[in-house]
């Protein structure tokens, strides 16, 4: 990066299946107010605003960045909208990082949200498309075959998916903001209905209303702030084409390339030893095992063994999603920013009851589309 960038403020809303108490603008402002308060800044201190969300048909409000300009405090400032499907929250944060790294802006507000209760995500994400084969199974039906392929390739036993889902819930119980916090056992998950075999109901992310906001700043601002910032050591996003022969959605090339990029720039040679916690995008249980491999935390075929040994649990070697992650809280557009924001909170030492001990480096990760977009950052206690 051209110059150092730090996370100086993190804010998020309470997440729920329906936040009927607030409009979209008020939901967004709840996260923005908290991020600004956290940073010890006000709207007038912000030089530029970046906002992201998933497709507009989720809420039926077209180009919400227009009517939200006032709510975001963007009057007479640069405002841009980012969209990269499920990874958008992470891409939005990374766009904020490049704003600051460019040297053109000192303090940038990055905001991501989704108010899924206003529409129907299954409809909105599977619209009738002209001249293409009709979609037949919804989002879970799109991703379940890749989970099956993972299981077939690695010989992972069936309890791995439920183990991941139950662990996510145990983690969310420590996170005041999480949407689903009620504990559940591996047996509860195993006994829940199979929706898209091999994915069960309790292995599937919820549909949430929520928002997240980050304040990203230059070194000068970060040094003057009230608290220890999280330094962005590296940030990157990569896309891959939908129709590449030999494309591997179980272990996507763009994900591997993106991870390699952020590790190299952060000076990390062995992520398993040098990263202390990771917030990764796991909308369906099995993806946690798949991404452990894709992100280079273990060899190909070994992700499920990491889970089976419990090494990704809270208090173990590499806690994954100590916040509970996407399986417990999923306002789609905000989910990626929540991953990056939670990673930042971990290195700031302010993750509350789900704080992992001794975090120096943390990875934040998101993916979106048909496993097409990847966006990640490595944040650290040290510049």
């Amino acid at each position, binding site marked *: 990066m051209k110059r150092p960038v730090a996370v100086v403020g993190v804010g998020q809303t309470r997440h729920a299946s329906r936040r009927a108490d607030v409009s979209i603008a008020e939901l967004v402002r709840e996260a923005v107010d908290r991020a600004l308060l956290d940073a010890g800044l006000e709207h007038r201190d912000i030089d530029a605003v970046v906002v992201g969300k998933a497709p507009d048909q989720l809420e039926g409000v077209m180009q919400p960045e227009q009517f939200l300009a006032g709510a975001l405090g963007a009057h007479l400032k640069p405002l841009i909208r980012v969209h990269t499907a499920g990874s958008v929250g992470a891409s939005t944060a990374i766009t904020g990082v490049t704003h600051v790294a460019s040297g053109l802006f000192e303090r940038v507000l990055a905001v991501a949200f989704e108010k899924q209760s206003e529409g129907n995500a299954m409809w909105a994400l599977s619209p*009738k498309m*002209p001249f293409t084969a009709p979609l037949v199974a919804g989002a879970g039906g799109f991703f*379940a*075959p*890749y989970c099956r*392929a993972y299981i*077939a390739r690695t010989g992972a036993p069936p309890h791995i998916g439920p183990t991941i889902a139950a662990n996510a819930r145990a983690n969310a119980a420590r996170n005041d903001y999480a949407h689903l916090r009620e504990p559940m056992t591996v047996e509860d998950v195993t006994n829940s209905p199979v929706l898209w*075999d091999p994915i069960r109901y309790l292995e599937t992310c919820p549909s949430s209303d929520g928002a997240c906001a980050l304040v990203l700043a230059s070194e000068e601002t970060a040094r003057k702030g009230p608290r220890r910032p999280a330094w962005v050591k590296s940030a990157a996003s990569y896309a891959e084409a939908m129709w590449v*022969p030999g494309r591997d*959605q179980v272990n996507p090339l763009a994900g591997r390339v993106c991870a390699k990029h952020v590790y190299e720039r952060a000076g990390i040679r062995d992520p398993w030893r040098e990263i202390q916690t990771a917030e990764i995008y796991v909308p369906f249980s099995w993806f946690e095992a798949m991404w452990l491999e894709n992100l280079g935390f273990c060899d190909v075929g070994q992700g499920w063994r990491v889970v089976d040994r419990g090494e990704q649990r809270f208090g173990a070697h590499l806690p994954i999603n100590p916040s509970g992650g996407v399986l417990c809280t999923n306002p789609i557009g905000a989910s990626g920013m929540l991953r990056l924001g939670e990673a930042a909170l971990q290195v700031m030492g302010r993750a509350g009851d789900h704080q992992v001990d001794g975090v120096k480096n943390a990875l934040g990760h998101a993916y979106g589309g048909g496993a097409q977009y990847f966006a990640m950052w490595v944040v650290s206690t040290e510049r």
Partner: protein
Amino acid sequence: MAEPPREPIKYVDALVRLPYHYVAGDCRARYLRALKDKKILGARCSETGKVFVPPLVNSPESLAPADEFVEVADRGVVTTFCIVNIPVIGRALELPYVVASIALDGADISIHALIQECKPEEVRMGMRVEAVWKPDGEREGSHEDILHFRPTGEPDMPREGFINRL
């Protein structure tokens, strides 16, 4: 009291209706019209020789034109699948049903399609399947011309043939 009522109106309902008029483009139009004749067309990359179904105008990999149309088989192998147990809006299919990735013989990328005419639990990775077409005179040059795929009864493809394909 100089204020509006304390209790807000909580919700406003809205129905958004968006009519569109699309044009397929030459490449997709040729592919769709061929379905009427029970032919599945792919496009061959002029550089790598790989075949895309449905056809693409250029390879996303080599970026070279894929301007040679070739016919691929209406049969192939199930590379992976899932069994759907919940209703999807707009699909009146009896549950459970199977959605599979199918690598058609002669194609280098897979399509997604329904597997019918067998029990869901009988579907396997590596299973050979064939297209079931709408009867002659009812096909109109759209994806619906293929009703679904069904098992051919041929021996399964060996594991190494499908395990790393999706």
